[in-house]
């Protein structure tokens, strides 16, 4: 709980009292009263019998430097919330801190965030299944629990074709009713590129493969990437949730059995081919592929990866410690059998569409990661099961993968240099896959405002981070600079911490959802470079009942043009069982 913000407070009797005293003791012992507001509030709750206050909520979000749209959305929403009698404060955190607060510590009321989403609606399994409420990572940060939704989520994993579509529709409709998070819009992804040096594939740029097969003009050997997010320069660990944003770099360093195209197709990559047979995937690997350190990459490494991601503590039989990323994908894998060096069988507990997605996890070299199974601060220290292993906390520099590029150097906060990995299988003759086409890939970290300018100035070839919406329209495209639009599936959403009241009440969440004028926000904040959504999946999966029709079909905005109709909201809150006081403040126990 951070100072100066009204983060969620627990008010259970024994429990609350206990934690206050303990916290108080700790703070006193340290001689500093950090986190003051949280403490004081709780103490007051106990001393004063009438602890019904104005609803006061904290919006956790990112600063302008990291995500201009998030903070703007937050402030627009804060205005609306204030108008309907809710007290709002902000908790603005750096990207790393934000992820730790929201995804690890679950210490937030509501957050505004760009959710990575997915081409396949199965990402909702990870995002909403109730067994994940206590885990750290993108798996159910909202703490949403609904057994009916769990059922539908499980069912859709087992099915294919039309039946799966029906099951997915069930999920989406239930989610739309309960609103564990409010999807706001899918922003367009625009990138500025130089066309005089490379040939770009507009669609592929949504995936790491956009940086392969670029057809450079003859004298060009370096791909100069500009990126606004400095996290890849401090940490290149594929398992570190807090450092992984949308950059393609870690994916360029690691191979997976298959890759996903921008259209959501699963295509062979390190796997030469595979056969699906009633819940078993028989995978044949490419032969003689080395890791960047020269060690051979074999079926053993693949098997190790799946086992390791499922349980990073293989020695400890009692507790399992799943990796905080790729959780939903790995969950589908029941067991892995190595047939021989280049062949293995995955037994899958899911239907084909979901089962094959399990092939998308990065393959970790067993000889390096095996040692990282130990507890991060050694035996005897404070340990908890998930997320404590060295594997999660290491910055993984320098990374040893097997991907088309290998790590050369980095300067923290400034840049990163990768070079072509000559041993990569895509460079072999006879392999018709996108291959690294430049000798060197340099990433320089630039402030969002100047990224475009660098492309225009010919000191960079591509902005790996999508452009901020306020610059998209004004890019000077007279020279060799072009703005490309790639398909996108990540979406902005308002996430609730549904663990605690009042956010645990779906009626409350629905009214909040109705305070968001998505159409207007898209115009105002995203300058139209986004499309409002009622359901968080790609267009082909949107059921008819949830298609955007100028307004949200399930939770339409209570007002017009961003102006909220206060009386209507008051009525909506009251019919949801909440009360206003005479001063028009929404009162609630927190």
């Amino acid at each position, binding site marked *: 709980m*951070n*100072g*100066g*913000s009204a983060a969620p407070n627990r008010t259970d009797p024994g429990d609350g009292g206990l934690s206050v005293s303990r916290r108080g003791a700790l703070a006193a012992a340290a001689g*500093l009263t*950090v*986190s*003051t507001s949280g403490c004081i509030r709780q103490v007051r709750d106990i001393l004063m019998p009438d602890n019904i206050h104005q609803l006061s909520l*904290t919006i956790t979000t990112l*600063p*302008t*430097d990291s995500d*201009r749209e998030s*903070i*703007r959305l937050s*402030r627009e929403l804060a205005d609306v919330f204030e108008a309907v009698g809710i007290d709002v*404060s*902000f*908790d*603005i*955190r*750096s990207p790393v*801190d934000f992820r730790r607060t929201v995804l690890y510590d679950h210490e937030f009321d509501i957050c505004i965030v760009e959710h990575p989403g997915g081409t396949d609606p199965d990402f909702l399994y990870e995002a909403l299944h109730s067994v994940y409420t206590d885990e750290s990572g993108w798996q159910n940060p909202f703490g949403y629990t609904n057994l009916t939704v769990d059922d539908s989520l499980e069912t859709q994993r087992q099915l294919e074709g039309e039946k799966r579509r029906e099951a997915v529709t069930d999920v989406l409709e239930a989610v739309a009713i309960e609103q564990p998070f409010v999807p706001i819009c899918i922003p367009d992804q625009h990138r500025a590129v130089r066309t005089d040096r490379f040939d770009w594939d507009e669609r592929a740029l949504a995936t790491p493969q956009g940086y392969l097969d670029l057809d450079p003009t003859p004298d060009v050997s370096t791909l100069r990437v500009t990126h606004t997010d400095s996290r890849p320069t401090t940490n290149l660990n594929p398992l570190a949730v807090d450092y992984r944003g949308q950059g393609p770099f870690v994916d360029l360093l690691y191979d997976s059995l298959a890759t996903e195209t921008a259209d959501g197709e699963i295509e062979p990559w390190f796997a030469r081919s595979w056969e699906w047979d009633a819940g078993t995937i028989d995978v044949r690997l490419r032969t003689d592929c080395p890791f960047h350190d020269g060690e051979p990459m074999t079926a053993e490494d693949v098997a190790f990866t799946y086992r390791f991601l499922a349980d990073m503590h293989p020695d400890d039989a009692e507790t399992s410690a799943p990796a905080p990323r790729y959780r939903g994908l790995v969950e589908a894998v029941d067991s892995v059998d190595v047939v021989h060096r280049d062949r293995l069988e995955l037994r899958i507990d899911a239907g084909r569409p979901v089962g094959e997605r399990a092939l998308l996890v990065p393959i970790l070299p067993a000889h390096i990661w095996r040692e990282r199974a130990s507890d991060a601060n050694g035996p005897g220290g404070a340990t908890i099961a998930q997320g404590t292993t060295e594997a999660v906390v290491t910055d993984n520099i320098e990374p040893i993968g097997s991907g088309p590029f290998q790590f050369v150097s980095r300067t*923290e*906060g400034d840049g990163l240099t990768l070079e072509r990995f000559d041993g990569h299988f895509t460079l072999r003759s006879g392999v018709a896959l996108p291959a690294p086409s430049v000798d060197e890939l340099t990433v320089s970290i*630039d*402030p969002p*405002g*100047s990224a475009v*300018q*660098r492309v225009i100035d010919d*000191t960079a070839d591509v902005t790996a981070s999508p452009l901020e919406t*306020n610059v998209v329209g004004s890019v000077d495209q007279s020279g060799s600079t072009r703005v490309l639009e790639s398909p996108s599936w990540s979406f902005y959403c308002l996430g609730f911490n549904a663990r605690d009241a009042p956010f645990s009440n779906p009626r409350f969440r629905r009214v909040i959802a109705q305070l968001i004028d998505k159409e207007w926000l898209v115009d105002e*904040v995203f300058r139209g470079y986004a499309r409002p959504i009622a359901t968080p999946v790609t267009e082909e999966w949107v059921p008819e009942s949830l298609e955007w029709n100028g307004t949200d079909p399930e939770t339409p905005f209570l007002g017009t043009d961003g102006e909220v109709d206060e009386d209507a909201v008051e009525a909506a809150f009251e019919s949801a069982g909440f009360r206003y006081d005479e001063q028009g403040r929404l009162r609630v126990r927190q």
Partner: protein
Amino acid sequence: MLAEVLTQVALVIGILLPVSVLVFIGRERLVRTRAEWRDRLRTNAPVIAVLLVVLLINRVARQTAPKLSREIGIHLTATFYNVEGEFILLFKSVETPELTAYFASVYVFGYTFLLIFPVIAYFMLSDTRIFRRLLTAYALNYAIGLVLYILIIAYGPRNVMPAELTERMLYDTNPQYQYLTREVNTNTNVFPSLHTSLSATVAAFASMTRSAYPKWFPIAVVLGASVALSTMYLGIHWGIDVAAGLVLAATCVVLSDKLVDRWSLSDLFGDRLERLSDRLPWLHREE
């Protein structure tokens, strides 16, 4: 781009400094200083060393402080925002492109000049105490500032109100400057405003040395005030940060008076210093 910006700054300062040395200091003092610089350097050496150490720590801390800060810092962005709200948007009413350009250049060039010139100017004074006080005040500013930066995590207004500030946000109009500032600061270091505190410190010293440098005083005050205003105008600091900066400046000026000459190094290490100076023949070359 950093190189570009640094060159720019070096160029501007390189032109401004000699000119102002001539205008404000005058030939006479230059000549005298030429004769006495070794002596003065010897008296001032400890305080120069202290400042250098503080700057070095600052430099190192730039890498590590954010992490430490994340551990023990208090998040105060929301508090500042709640307290002063959209106060700094007041400047919206006077916003013009010219004013934006003025404040942007004051923020980058004016500030740098404001910091460097007094160092030279006060070195030229035969009374070395004011020079030592200035450097002590600088060191205090940086040291206290660093501690506060570690303890308080807050984002500036530009990170909270991007839409309202777009037209005059320094990094929107002149994104290249961000390369410079990120070399010396992270975006959570806004409380207090060191720009303000150092400028105010310089202005305070300028007022104390009115008699020696009468022409410098008004310039320092105007420039100092402009720097303080620019931090708010450009959306970098909250009003609270600026107020804290002024308090910090006052503290540092007062403390510098109390601290300087309190301990004489020669008293403490008298003998050793003698021997040290013996071993450094260039200090005695002319004697």
